[in-house]
């Protein structure tokens, strides 16, 4: 191989490495078959879809970030399909978006754990790696990323921040990449706008830190 070819391959490699974007999967909870919780201004699925679209737009203003929806409007996907999609895509982050009826603006963050929730396994027995333990493959990375949500404290005056709390939440079961549940309080559909700026800011900071 000539020196010229080698230099070209090296240049191409550097370009590919540089071009790899920080991929975030946004999962708006609810669909036509399962619209989720009822809020004064409609069902949860309408709020989550609207917010996910806005968040995607805000995130993609940063050229180093790629935001993908876990499913499109009208599609019905199970949790296992979402988990399989996220794991096969080897995305960097998975965000499950949830809304509930609340007069106060509030944002709660959860990440998956089952370590406290299962009786100690008998180590003499062979066991299959269940979906409730998939999180363990990226536990350290998730905990590291969880620290970034502390930066939301600067929004304490506008939002009631809760978490991040480790819990066995069904929305994250089976996901083997860092994943978080965001649960946001709203009354009207226009309330979703107030969460775009704080969350996109944290996710952008997170993406830049991970790329360094």
């Amino acid at each position, binding site marked *: 191989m000539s020196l010229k070819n080698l230099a070209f391959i090296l240049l191409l490699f550097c370009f590919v490495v540089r071009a790899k974007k920080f991929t975030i999967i946004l999962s708006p909870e609810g669909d036509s078959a399962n619209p*989720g*919780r*009822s809020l004064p201004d409609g069902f949860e699925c309408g709020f989550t879809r609207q917010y996910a679209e806005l968040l995607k737009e805000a995130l993609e203003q940063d050229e180093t970030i790629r935001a993908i929806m876990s499913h499109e409007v009208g599609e019905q996907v199970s949790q296992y399909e979402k988990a399989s999609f996220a794991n096969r895509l080897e995305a960097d982050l998975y965000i499950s978006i*949830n809304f*509930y*009826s*609340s007069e106060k603006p*509030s944002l*709660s963050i*959860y990440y998956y754990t*089952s370590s*406290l*929730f*299962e*009786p100690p396994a008998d180590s003499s027995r062979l066991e299959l790696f269940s979906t*409730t333990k998939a999180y363990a493959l990226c536990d350290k990375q998730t905990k590291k990323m969880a620290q970034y949500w502390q930066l939301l404290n600067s929004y304490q005056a506008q939002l009631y921040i*809760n978490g991040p*709390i*480790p*819990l*066995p*939440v*069904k*929305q994250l*079961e089976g996901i083997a990449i860092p994943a978080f*549940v965001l*649960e946001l*309080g709203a009354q009207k559909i226009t309330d979703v706008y107030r969460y775009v700026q704080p969350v996109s800011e944290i996710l952008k900071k997170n993406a830049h830190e991970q790329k360094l």
Partner: protein
Amino acid sequence: MRMNRSCKYAVFLTIFCGVLGFVYYAWQQRWIIVTIPAGLVTKPCTNCTKKRAQIFYFCNKWEHENIEILWSENEAQTAQQLIQAVLLLLSENASTKKIAVEQVLTSANNQQLLVFFDKSPLPKNVSIRAKLMIIESFLKTLRENGIKAPFIYFLVHNQPLPDAHLDFSLAWPIQDFVEN
């Protein structure tokens, strides 16, 4: 005439088998749920003493009330009364529907407590945090009153408690997992 009689039997047998099949299918699909009335399964409290218990519940902040319950040597019986007391306080404060604890059992190794409700104590439309606080009310009450089983399973009709957000197919630790 004889033909008619056998024909009648055949029709009767067909209808009977059809009804039996439908009832069996409905039972399998859980359209029909058979439960023994609570009064028939409640064992008389043996070696019971009246004692004060602290019942905890979350209503914007942790609150507690002291009530008298029949304390039994059997941990499961005591746990049933404690959880029922929490449910009563929660329904008084949130004016929600009445929910009963059908039964509480301990596993063979005394490591797990199985709590059977008649319906889910978690409202559908509330936040994960609110649901968490209801569960923590049960756990805190059990913990503070000296129940020793380290893990609790929450069930409704012999199935893990159905919820859209929290996974009850796992045993919940009695220790303060929110702090952990």
